[in-house]
């Protein structure tokens, strides 16, 4: 499933009941996880368990800082309509997040066309939190710049693997893509990260 399909379609690709047989067929070993998730989650629990994850994902998938909260809320609103069909909670939320992020980015692009460059650039910059020192903030901005140049499907895999520290099989299950594809996307994403990262850092000095 390509990111384009994702962005075009209604979100919960592959992780709802319909796709469940396929998912379980590819991953019979994950029975413990499945058992935990057999009963449809309540919205409250979803929010409690995954709010920060969705928030981070929205940030890393390229939502302007000012819009992150809206995207997070949109993701949970969509989830609240599909509680009964959610099988893989994080997978569903992440996919929905990709979908919602696509919306916001298109909106920002329109804003970008209409209003002005600088404002959008400022909004896209990763904002330093008080916990981050200046160096950290700079590093975070570099990371965001690199992520922004990655094609969406590489970016998703890179975020899940390198930043969320998930494994290839976990990612494969989450986004409904074969492990081999995940691995090859990850390799390409890393190449992008390392080459762009070095260039950006050199340029910054």
């Amino acid at each position: 499933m390509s990111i384009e399909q994702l962005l075009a379609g209604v979100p919960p690709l592959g992780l709802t009941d319909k796709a469940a047989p396929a998912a379980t067929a590819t991953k019979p070993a994950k029975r413990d996880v499945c058992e935990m998730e057999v009963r449809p989650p309540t919205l409250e629990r979803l929010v409690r368990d995954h709010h920060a994850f969705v928030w981070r994902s929205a940030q890393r998938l390229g939502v302007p800082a000012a819009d992150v909260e809206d995207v997070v809320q949109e993701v949970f609103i969509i989830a609240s309509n599909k509680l009964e069909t959610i099988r893989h909670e994080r997978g569903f939320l992440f996919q929905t997040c990709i979908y919602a992020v696509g919306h916001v980015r298109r909106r920002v692009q329109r804003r970008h066309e209409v209003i002005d460059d600088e404002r959008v650039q400022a909004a896209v910059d990763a904002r330093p939190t008080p916990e981050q020192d200046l160096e950290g903030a700079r590093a975070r901005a570099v990371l965001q710049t690199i992520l922004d140049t990655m094609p969406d499907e590489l970016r998703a895999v890179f975020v899940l693997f390198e930043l969320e520290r998930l494994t290839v099989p976990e990612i494969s299950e989450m986004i409904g893509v074969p492990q081999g594809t995940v691995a090859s996307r990850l390799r390409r994403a890393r190449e992008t990260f390392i080459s762009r990262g070095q260039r950006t850092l050199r340029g910054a000095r």
Partner: protein
Amino acid sequence: MNEMKPLLDSELPEDLASVLRSADADGPPEHAPAEARTLAAVAAHRAAGSNANEGRATTRIPFARSMLAPVVGACVGAAVVFASLVWWNAPLGANGTAAPTPSAPQAPASAARPPASASPEGVRIDDLPTARVEEAAPKPAGRPPVRRGDSAAELEDELAMIDSARAALAAKRPEATLAGIRAYHRRFRAGHFTEEADALEIQALVAMGRRDEAKAKGERFLASHPGSAYVRRVQSAVASEVKP
């Protein structure tokens, strides 16, 4: 796939590693309030959405029905306007110079009554399809609120109660806030917004000058919810009580 170790666990130049590590601080700046806002947003959306869906689900017939009333109304209105025009014009047409006195219409109208729908009597309300009008009438009144799930509906109710309590406090009606919060506690023993409810109650007590109670409740709140998002609000409410 032996190479698939995270970059941070492998040899990576320090500057690139620090770029990756910089994402560790991602996430909402303040967790609990952000979560609460998300829950509230979902509840609000579901409240709005259940109405919208209700409309959508029953679109066909009720829509037709709901259109009947305005259409019939418009017909009646148009007919009345038209009829009154005829009333005013008829005498003029008949006598040329007839003064349009209030009594004038009577004779010409009854004279020109016959079959045309232009006649005032042709559009008596009784002649209109009353049966269908009645059919349309019950719709807004008799439709029970459809609830999509108890939890969503309850969340929405909870939120409404908290909102009105908060609004009352903002409107300097702490008694109403207190009453609202008591009602909330009676109805939702283990509600989602109990912390907010407690905070509002404490603020209301302070506003009403019931300081000892506020202080006692505030201390209990701070002891039992040390990490709550409302700690600061409670602290400042109790502190403001010390000042004056």
